[in-house]
């Protein structure tokens, strides 16, 4: 599960982290991926492997429409529009009972096998989630070194100045938004197959979006490995907290929130950049020691 969350956080980071436009509604893409896979498999017996791709394609189309419509929105307005978009899809998933089964959700039949992407043990799922995480992080590493990555950062910092240098800001943002949405959708598909049951309030909820966004923010916005660091610290901490205070429900959430606030107050950039800075300073000090 940690791998999966990391992958999702990194998918989100791919767009919002590098260009600084926070899409709080990314759970919508997770939902699209999850539903596409689950419905195709449960109703038509189509292999989830194909379902993943269908979900990705659907997400790409939706991302183009939503991304295109929200291009001109800036700052808070963009954030709000993504929330509205996620809410619309969630509501749709609840009310369109004929298609999605409404709030009852979709139960995925349990027939283990490779083609069905269903196994009795947890290991294969872990491998898939791990591969997913690696692919998304690798994509982020590649992004950082590519033209798109440079353009995305530049647009995020100053759209006018970037356009002056020949950057087509609309195309840059759309491209990244689309890739980010497709990756998120893949994560949603994997999540659906692992949990074997999906419902709107689970896969499409704001809480879900916020969870992987927090991982990315805590780890380090706009850094390829930030989401990894964030997840591998925060997910276990969440579990420990939940285990330590089982009697009071919700207390772990409160404590987690506090930890996050402290991290963000102390280091606005997140944990990873802070670590890097620390290492750099140590090195510099060591160098100076040698000199003197």
């Amino acid at each position: 599960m940690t791998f999966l969350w990391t992958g999702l956080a990194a998918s989100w980071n791919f767009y919002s982290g590098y260009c600084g436009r926070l899409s709080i509604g990314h759970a919508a893409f997770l939902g699209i991926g999850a539903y596409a896979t689950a419905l195709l498999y449960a109703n038509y017996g189509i292999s989830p492997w194909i379902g993943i791709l269908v979900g990705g394609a659907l997400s790409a189309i939706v991302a183009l429409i939503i991304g295109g419509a929200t291009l001109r929105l800036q700052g808070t307005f963009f954030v709000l529009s993504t929330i509205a978009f996620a809410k619309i899809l969630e509501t749709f998933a609840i009310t369109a009972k004929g298609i999605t089964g409404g709030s009852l959700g979709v139960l995925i039949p349990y027939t283990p096998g490779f083609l069905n992407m269903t196994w009795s043990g947890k290991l294969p799922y872990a491998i898939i989630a791990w591969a997913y995480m690696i692919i998304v992080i690798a994509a982020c590493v590649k992004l950082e070194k590519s033209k798109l990555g440079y353009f995305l950062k530049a647009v995020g910092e100053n759209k006018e100045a970037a356009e002056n240098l020949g950057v087509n800001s609309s195309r840059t943002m759309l491209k990244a938004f689309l890739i980010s949405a497709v990756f998120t959708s893949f994560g949603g598909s994997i999540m659906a197959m692992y949990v074997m049951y999906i419902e709107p309030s689970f896969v499409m909820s704001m809480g879900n979006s916020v969870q992987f966004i927090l991982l990315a923010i805590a780890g380090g916005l706009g850094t390829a490995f930030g989401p990894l660091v964030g997840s591998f610290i925060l997910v276990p901490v969440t579990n420990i907290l939940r285990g330590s205070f089982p009697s009071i429900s919700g207390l772990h959430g409160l404590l987690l929130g506090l930890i996050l606030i402290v991290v963000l107050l102390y280091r606005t950039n997140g944990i990873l950049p802070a670590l890097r800075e620390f290492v750099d300073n140590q090195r510099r000090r060591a160098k100076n020691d040698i000199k003197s």
Partner: protein
Amino acid sequence: MILRADAITKRFGGICALDKVSFEIEEGSIVGLIGPNGAGKTTLFNCINGTLPIDDGRIYFCGEEITNKRSYELARLGMCRSYQIVKPFRSMTVLQNAMVGAFCRVKSRKSAQEIATEALETVGLYEKRDEKASNLNIGESKKLEIAKAFSTKPKLLLLDEVMAGILPSEVKVMSKIVRDINESGVTIILIEHIMEAIMSLSERIIVLNFGEKIAEGAASEVVRNSEVIKAYLGVEEE
């Protein structure tokens, strides 16, 4: 002729910021654009390079009409500007800043790095290439503005007050940078208040006042023009 403006008009509500401004820029020249504060100099830049749409008139660049083209299209055609109020990409390093411009011409990171490095050498920021752009002082930031624009390999460069707010000793350095870039084959339009610099650099000068072109000509002629003196110093009541 690299740039031709034909009766550019720009209104902000009731105010006419540019009133039928026409001029032509010879390829390879350095042209100064001067005028009192609020004359419309920066607005003229904004209109030429597509940051602001114009209300009337036409603009031609290298013989092609570019009226109301977007600025990223113009950058690809070979026109780029620097900003009076510097706009660096703060979280990126100096080299990365220039590389954004270089990606306008090349795809691979390596060639972008080469172009950007060259541009940084031209403006004398090579030593600072790994510094975060947010750590630069104002003089260095102005140089970075030039380097970013120069990295797009422009034919025409619009420089907006690159010498404002820098040390007097740096003005000479900056003048040399402008001249070097010009000698590499780039036409330059220069907005500047420092007369000494603009007089020595520009072959021709265009003077704006209240959105109208009031004079144009060789530097020595323009300073003797009575309209220009009136605009800058006012007239004595008789």
